[in-house]
Structure formats: C-alpha cells, structure tokens
C-alpha cells in the first residue's frame, strides 16, 4: 500500500497518520488519550520466547496440585481441572463451563495462537490461516482470567489456613509463573508488526 498508513482510534474513531516511533514509545489518540500503538523491541522473538516458556508453566500448573490441606490426619488436594470436575459433579454446569473457559481453556488458546503464528514467522515463513488464529486470539483475550484465579487461590489459602493445615503445591508456583510469562508474551506482541511481516512473506 502506497498511501500513508492511517490509524483509527478504536475508542473514538479519530484518524491519525502513523509515524515511526523510537523503541518503547507509545502513540496516544490526540482526542481521547487511548493508546493507539507502541513500538516494541522484538515483536516476534520476545513474545515467542515468553509463549514457549508459558506453555511449560501451563503444563506444570495443570498437572500438579495447587493447594493441599490436612485435617486430623486426613488430607485432600485440589488441581485446576479437579475443581471444574467437582462443580460438574455438583450439577453447576454453567459455572463449571465458565471456570473451565476462563481459567483453563483461554490461557491455552492464547499461548497456542501465539506459538502457531510466531514460530513460522521466526523461521521466515507464514502460518496457514494465521488471520483466523489471530482473530480467535483477539476474541479470547478479554476472557482469559488466570491472574484472577490466582487471587482466588490466595484468598482460599488465607481463608482455610485458620481451619486446617494448608500447603502450597507445585502447581500454584507454576501458575504464578504462567501469569507473569503470559503478561510478558502479550505485552511484547504487536498485531500491527506481525501483520506487516505476514504480508511481506510470500
């Protein structure tokens, strides 16, 4: 496209002409102050590295117990999927589905979408159906609530610590790492830069 690249503010629709920014700088809307775009350091390599690390943290967080309690010699432990299973057993299907989607499925979809699009790009190719995958990534983004689930774990921990012996599991530490890595992957990801690279590929 030979025309100057335009940017429309998604919050107020004001048009701006895109200008080159120094690394780390942010362009804001003249009228409503919403962030228009940023200049990231490495829009492919960095989010790819963080997404790969997040995948490992995700697998550990979902395989090991998050919390374990002991009460008068008897113990019980909770995994993420175990919590969803329990809600299903108790007949709360809508709640089970919401928790499954926001705490289990959405983070995995985000990680998977980033890996699917960025890995081929890093190797100098472009993934098939990258457009559809990036669209799914955008739709899922507001529904990914790993950090809120983490706060829920901490609240449960404090609440139960008065009643029973409670221990933090390996899964909980991995879950904390997952949140940090996901945030890092997302904040280094740049839709616009990735699209430019996708268009430049044969």
């Amino acid at each position: 496209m030979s025309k100057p690249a335009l940017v429309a503010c998604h919050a107020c629709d004001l048009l701006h002409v895109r200008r080159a920014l120094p690394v780390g700088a942010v362009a804001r809307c003249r009228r409503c102050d919403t962030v228009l775009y940023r200049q990231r350091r490495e829009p492919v390599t960095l989010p790819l590295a963080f997404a790969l690390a997040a995948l490992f943290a995700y697998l550990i967080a979902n395989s090991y117990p998050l919390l374990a309690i002991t009460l008068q010699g008897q113990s019980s432990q909770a995994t993420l999927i175990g919590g969803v299973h329990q809600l299903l057993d108790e007949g709360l299907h809508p709640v089970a589905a919401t928790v499954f989607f926001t705490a289990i499925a959405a983070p995995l979809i985000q990680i998977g979408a980033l890996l699917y699009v960025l890995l081929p790009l890093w190797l100098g190719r472009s993934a098939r159906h990258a457009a559809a995958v990036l669209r799914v990534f955008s739709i899922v983004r507001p529904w990914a609530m790993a950090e809120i689930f983490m706060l829920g774990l901490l609240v449960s921990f404090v609440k139960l610590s008065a009643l029973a012996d409670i221990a933090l599991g390996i899964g909980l530490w991995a879950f904390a790492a997952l949140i940090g890595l996901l945030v890092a992957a997302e904040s280094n990801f740049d839709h616009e830069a990735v699209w430019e690279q996708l268009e430049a590929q044969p």
Partner: protein
Amino acid sequence: MNSAPTTAAAAGLIGCPVCGLVSRLGNAPRGAVLRCPRCNTHVHSRKPNSLGRTWALIVAAVLCYFPANMLPILHSTTLGRTDADTILSGIAHFIEAGDWLLAVLIFTASVVVPLSKLFVLAYLLVSVQRGTRWRPRDRTRLFRFVEIIGPWSMLDVFVVTVLVALVKIESLANIEPGAGAVFFCAVVVLTMFAALTFDSRLIWDATESNHVRRTHAH
C-alpha cells in the same frame, strides 16, 4: 491530509478491531457484511445495535444480581453441622474473624465492581442517547476503567471453585457450591458481554457537528 480532526467514519473508512488496518467502506449496501481486506474480520463502522444490546445485557445482569445475593453460594459441613453462606454473610464472617483484608477484597470484587460497572454502563448509555457533549474524554476513560476492572468480579466464583475442590474430607469437613454461585457467575458474564457490546465511539459521535453526525447514522 487536512489538519482538521476527522473520524474514520466521516472519511468513509473503517478501522479493523483485530489487525488495525484502516480500509475504505466502498459503496456496500446498508446492512451488508463488511470484512477487513487484510484479515477477513467482520468490521463495522459502529458496533451493530450497540445501545439496545448493551441495555438488554444490563437488564439481564440486574435480574440475576438479586438471586446471586439472596441464595447461598456455599454450603459448608463441619462435623455434621451445615452452614449456608451468601456472598454478604461470607464477607461478614471475614469481618468477625478480623480478616479485614479479605473482607475488603471480596466486598470490592463481588459488590463494588459489578454494581459500579452496571451503573457506569447505564450512565454512559443514557448520556449517549441524550446526545451529551459533556467531557467525552472522561467518559471514555470511565468506560476503559470499568472494562479493566470487570473481570475481577469473577474472584468469588474462583474462590468457590477452589474451596469446593479442596475441602472434601469425608466426615470432617465438606464444602459444596450453592445456587447463588450460578447467578453470580451469570452476572459477571453478562456484564462482560455488556462492556463488549458497548461502542465508546458513540460517546464522540454526539460531540461532533450535526452535519458529520448524520453521515454516521449507520
């Protein structure tokens, strides 16, 4: 480019919400499905029927808010004694136990966040429908704020999930979820959808001149 501020809609352009590409509307008939030429996402100059849909979701969320607070979200059995807790009685227990931090945290996530989100969205809808020109920048900020805090009201649902999964010690202690959790979960999901269907560009359309406004009627 002229220096006067122009919106994409006034210039006959649409910005793609996914890839950011600004493309020309063309002479597509009214109601036609428009797609971004680069990433094939459905694009709309303004979200379709934003005001009506957002109102409907707000009303549905308000209706669910009552049973969410009146029905118990947890049934806990300790040594044969069963207690039912609603969101508010759960907060009261934290206060009794002196856990002020948890009380404030749960109160904020379960009461302050969903209610302020409903009030703010309703206020923004009314302000758009009345064509208010008052402080559009602050109203846009207000919308962004409720959009960011919204998901945190899921906190109590997650706490219930963890407690239900963890406290399963046959005869000693058992926690089961209550019907209130279903309604509370519905409140959170409905208000999330309400924020997604609201189009903050409508706040700004009212501030523009009548001439421009007529061109984005659809």
